[in-house]
């Protein structure tokens, strides 16, 4: 049974085409992992589901997302309704500046639960589900920011569940956590999949292997492959999926030439890259360093269109990306 149906979904940030014509179905009460390199549109896809993408200036979305009988992207759909049905577990825990109790009670209060006794019950129930109750039962009134990062993340999980969603969206939920806390979160998610549809964005292949029943692979905004986890992860049909899965273990490719295009805007970085590639012999490898976000997707795309092979696109640090291209034609 599919729970979320995505049809011809495209997303743009200004001129940047972040998602290209995605059509896929997300199964109910299973964990679906969206994998792919950084900047491939994973988080964007998640933001389309709960329409947090509306908050980004210059973002446009087209296509359809159907959840149950709800048309998510339709202008007439109440966006608070959409978000209520999808809990969000963010990349970095984002407790609200209030007590532990108030954090969990925040959602139910918004939606009209006023009675103290009822709120107490809700808070206890969801802190238990989040696996945090035993640690905080004596200090529910203390500020949420006093908790450790791992505890904060479980609090965010409990808070998201307290509005009784059907779907839990997780955006790299363990990337800011230490290994023990990460494991804790993963265990909670595995417990929750009996009752919820879970979508998790991750760039950690191992995590996808541990958690996912179903896998969607995105690459440069395109849907490359999707299917049951064991098929996609162990026996990918697509060359690019195989490259990505293996690529995470891949040693550095030895580049024949390296050029630094930091500080160059599109299309100049593309032009310089093309010139450099032109000077190389067939089969040689060119390594580019770029820091322009548009270039991260547009340069590889342009190179592929020119018949060359994009070996890998990797983020090196906060601003810089490394693109490796093999000259073919």
């Amino acid at each position: 049974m599919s729970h979320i149906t995505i049809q011809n979904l495209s997303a743009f940030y200004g001129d940047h085409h972040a998602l290209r014509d995605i059509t896929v179905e997300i199964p109910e009460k299973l964990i679906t992992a969206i994998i792919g390199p950084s900047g491939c549109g994973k988080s964007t896809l998640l933001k389309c589901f709960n329409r947090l993408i509306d908050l980004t200036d210059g973002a446009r979305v087209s296509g359809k997302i159907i959840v149950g009988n709800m048309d998510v992207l339709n202008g007439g759909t109440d966006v608070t309704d959409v978000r209520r049905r999808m809990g969000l577990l963010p990349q970095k825990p984002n407790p609200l500046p209030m007590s532990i109790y108030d954090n969990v009670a925040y959602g139910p209060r918004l939606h009209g639960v006023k009675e103290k006794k009822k709120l107490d019950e809700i808070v206890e129930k969801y802190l238990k589900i989040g696996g945090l109750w035993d640690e905080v039962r004596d200090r529910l009134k203390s500020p949420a920011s006093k908790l450790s990062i791992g505890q904060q993340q479980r609090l965010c999980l409990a808070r998201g569940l307290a509005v009784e969603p059907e779907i839990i969206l997780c955006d790299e939920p363990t990337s800011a956590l230490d290994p023990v806390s990460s494991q804790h979160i993963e265990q909670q998610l595995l417990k929750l999949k009996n009752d919820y549809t879970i979508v998790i964005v991750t760039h950690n292949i191992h995590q996808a292997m541990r958690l996912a029943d179903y896998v969607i692979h995105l690459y440069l905004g395109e849907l490359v492959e999707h299917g049951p986890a064991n098929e996609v992860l162990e026996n990918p049909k697509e060359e690019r999926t195989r490259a990505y899965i293996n690529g995470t273990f891949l040693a550095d490719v030895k580049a024949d030439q390296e050029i630094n295009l930091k500080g160059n805007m599109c299309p100049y970085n593309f032009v310089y890259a093309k010139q450099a590639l032109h000077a190389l012999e067939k089969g040689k490898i060119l390594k580019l360093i770029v820091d322009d976000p548009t270039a991260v997707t547009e340069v590889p795309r342009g190179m592929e269109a020119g018949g060359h092979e994009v070996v890998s696109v990797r983020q090196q640090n906060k601003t810089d990306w490394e693109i490796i291209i093999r000259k073919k034609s």
Partner: protein
Amino acid sequence: MNFRRLKDAFAGRLMLAAAVFSSVLVFIVAIALYLRSEPILEVKSLGELLLGSAWLPSQSIFGFYPFILGTVIVTALAMVFAIPLSILSAVYLAEYANERLKSIVLPLIDLLAGIPPVVFGVFGVLAVVPLVAGIAPLFKDSGIPFLNGGGYATGYSVLAGGIVLAIMVFPIIISISYEVFKAVPFEVREASLSLGATRWQTIKHAVIRTALPGIAAAVILGFSRAIGETMAVLMVVGNVVKIPSSIFDSTYPLTALIANNYGEMMSIPLYDSALLLAALILMLIILFSTLGARLILVRIERRMHG
């Protein structure tokens, strides 16, 4: 090499001296005021001075109560007008307004903050005072406390002072709280919105809450500006020594008392000392109210962030 190190040490010391000097200045002013107001404190009891409501310097009667009350009421009224107005504007500008509107409105608000007080005073006399004189009769027999306009109203009143002060203060509060709202991390909004909150719920329960310490600081700054403001206020409040029973009555704040009288009739015994005591009282009011506000601020922050 040694010379370089010497210069380094000297630069450090020089900056230390500058920092110490500017912070010690406040004590120097306070001590000077105290020493100069001592003569009156020696002959009169503090209770008599602070609670007396008669001001007859020639008979050596100095009651500061009407002035203290005048300062407190005018400032409080100004804050009552300015706080909601500025915070709502700041919320709108930070959360709702588009870039174009912001690029027009924000510079205008900054411009307003830069207008000299005397200009606001003239504006008050020409526009606010007649307005108040016009509306005062409407409340003549309203029976509402503090709104009862007694008989003939000139418009030179607590209300006029409050309005003029509010106009002077709100650009400060707006521009600071705007920055504070802008500094609220996106994650806070994201957290609230993803739980199905509307935009307004998010602002009301999450954004304002996060911004509260900053807003409080903005309000404190506005308050200190309002309470110490002299020129614009003395031009519109009427400067009559009496205890105002309504916001349409005239009043006489401490700042106006000092500015109007210092340097005149100084031959009257104790007069000079009385005015400097007024200055000391004003300084203490500001000191304690700012201190109190800071304490509240610390408590809010502790409750939120531990």
